[in-house]
């Protein structure tokens, strides 16, 4: 009987939310009609403003947080944040009870309001999401953190709003690890760098004394595996981001490269090159046991696990040219999956498990694309002079990659930048970085 009542409630809830929720966003299609949303500055009283200046050297951290939210929603391509100049209601009053007619007048369909206080070195934030057309509150949340975390607060609010309106997890409270590049093409200085997904809070993790390439996060985003030419020995390394501890992964008598973590974080999968042949190996991080996964005289590299750990995708030139393959994670059942025209490389399994993103080279152009894990349904998202190395946002909706420009005969005009594009092929945009940048890797969602 109780069970039946519970079921009834669940059904009722589903029905009611369907009936009253007027706004929802379909993110599976290219969204050419982003949702108009008003992000009211989070209200902060005078006492709190003084504390804000003392703690953060920012006068109104409430408006700053709302700017973070606004920018996130805008770059997602799914929202159209409205100009604050048109807002008729003051932030504190709107937060208590918005006059829905006023917000409907400026064509807002959703409204975010909120309040921040800084007291005793604590930042308290509450926010609400309102459905303007239905005239009701959709969500209300409050949290407390240290004041220096204020940008993350903006990202967490963005994620909550995104999740409430799209039905899928957001990707804003995340970080990107990448390779920062400076100097001429023939003597490029490369450093590991990490930043928030929106380009803020950049930190450099290496000094640039040795060449570093292809950093990738572990599933908890606390560790990074990458290739370093420390002492001119190209080897796979492991770096703990918090402590800065670095260690070489295994003692291989040759070059190890193209590392990635397994989805359970227990192993590193990588290529090991010796005597002109590259094959794929794994190393268990706990017991340091090394396993050989492929054994073929061709180049086998760029391995990436499926999210359930059961399969591995990689590229190999065993057919004569670089193509994408899938095998079981013990190395059996190797199947070629790319059969289109051109060369295929850098396959990466989507966190949802259904797609593989890749780089394709055809007739002098580079493409970022996706295909199903059996190779069907190939879709090219973007074409350019040079671009490669896609990495998935944790919700599997966005890809980040790097793009290089052509240089002239004197080598001028070269640049390397990070770009992102939606899985739909829309919303392509440059990701801001302090320096030139390449080899991006997207972290998991830091808060959950």
């Amino acid at each position: 009987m109780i069970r039946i009542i519970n079921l009834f409630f669940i059904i009722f809830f589903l029905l009611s939310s369907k009936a009253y929720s007027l706004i929802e966003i379909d993110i599976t299609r290219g969204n050419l009609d982003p949702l108009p949303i008003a992000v009211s500055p989070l209200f902060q009283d005078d006492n709190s403003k003084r504390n804000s200046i003392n703690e953060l050297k920012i006068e109104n951290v409430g408006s700053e947080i709302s700017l973070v939210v606004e920018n996130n929603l805008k770059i997602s391509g799914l929202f159209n944040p409205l100009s604050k100049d048109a807002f008729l209601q003051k932030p504190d009053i709107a937060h208590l009870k918005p006059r829905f007619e006023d917000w409907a007048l400026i064509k807002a369909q959703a409204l975010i309001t909120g309040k921040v206080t800084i007291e005793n070195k604590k930042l308290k934030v509450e926010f609400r999401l309102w459905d303007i057309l239905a005239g009701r509150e959709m969500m209300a949340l409050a949290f407390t953190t240290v004041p220096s975390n204020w940008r993350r607060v903006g990202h967490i609010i963005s994620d909550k709003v995104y999740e409430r309106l799209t039905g899928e997890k957001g990707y804003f409270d995340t970080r990107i690890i990448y390779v920062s590049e400076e100097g001429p093409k023939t003597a490029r200085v490369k450093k590991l760098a990490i930043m928030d997904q929106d380009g803020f809070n950049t930190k450099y993790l290496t000094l640039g004394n040795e060449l570093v390439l292809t950093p990738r996060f572990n599933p908890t985003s606390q560790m990074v595996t990458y290739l370093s030419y420390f002492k001119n020995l190209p080897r796979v390394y492991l770096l703990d981001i918090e402590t800065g501890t670095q260690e070489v992964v295994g003692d291989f008598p040759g070059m190890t490269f193209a590392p990635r973590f397994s989805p359970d974080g227990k192993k590193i999968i990588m290529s090991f090159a010796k005597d002109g042949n590259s094959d794929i190996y794994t190393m268990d991080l706990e017991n340091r046991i090394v396993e050989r996964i492929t054994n073929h005289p061709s180049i086998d590299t760029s391995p990436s696990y499926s999210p359930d750990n059961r399969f591995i995708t990689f590229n190999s030139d065993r057919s004569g040219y670089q193509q994408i393959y899938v095998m079981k994670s013990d190395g059996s059942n190797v199947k070629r999956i790319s059969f289109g025209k051109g060369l295929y490389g850098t396959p990466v399994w989507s966190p949802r498990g259904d797609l593989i993103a890749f780089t394709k080279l055809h007739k002098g152009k580079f493409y970022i694309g996706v295909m199903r894990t059996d190779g069907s349904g190939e879709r090219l998202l973007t074409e350019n002079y040079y671009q490669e190395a896609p990495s998935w946002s944790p919700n599997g909706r966005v890809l980040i990659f790097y793009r290089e420009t052509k240089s002239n005969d004197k080598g001028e005009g070269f640049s390397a930048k990070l770009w992102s594009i939606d899985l739909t092929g829309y919303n392509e945009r440059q990701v801001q970085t302090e320096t030139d940048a390449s080899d991006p890797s997207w972290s998991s969602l830091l808060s959950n």
Partner: protein
Amino acid sequence: MNFSKSFRNTFLVILLSLIVSACATKKTTTKVEGQMQGDVYTGTDTVKYLADGVPDRVFFATNESILTTKSRDTLRKQANWLRENSSINVVVEGHADERGTREYNLALGERRANAAKDYLITYGISADRISVISYGKERPVDSGSNPLSWSKNRRSVTVKAN
């Protein structure tokens, strides 16, 4: 049949280019052609020397690690010189051009360096005197984005280790 056809086409192209270059004042394009065979670099302007008459590098076709006749000739000279200078060890650096994915190019550079190393071993140089390192596309010698620049970058370079 196809071969003779393409041969005839090539002949026509050469003839045409001769006519064009005769009309216009001499263009650099003919000079560029002269520095590549297929897409393997045959020029000398980035080449350094291990010793008098012993070039330090050999060049490869796109995506290839096969040694050309000229490359084998260069490597025999290196082997002779290494035999005469038995106290010197070398590192063979393998490189790729910028038109490939980074990780594949690291593997390709390693394959090229080993092709050169194996040839040196065939000519009597002990394997423990030769180490290899791949830089993939990370250390181009020519920073242009054109077929000639790329051909100079697809190389293996033998450098003294001590």
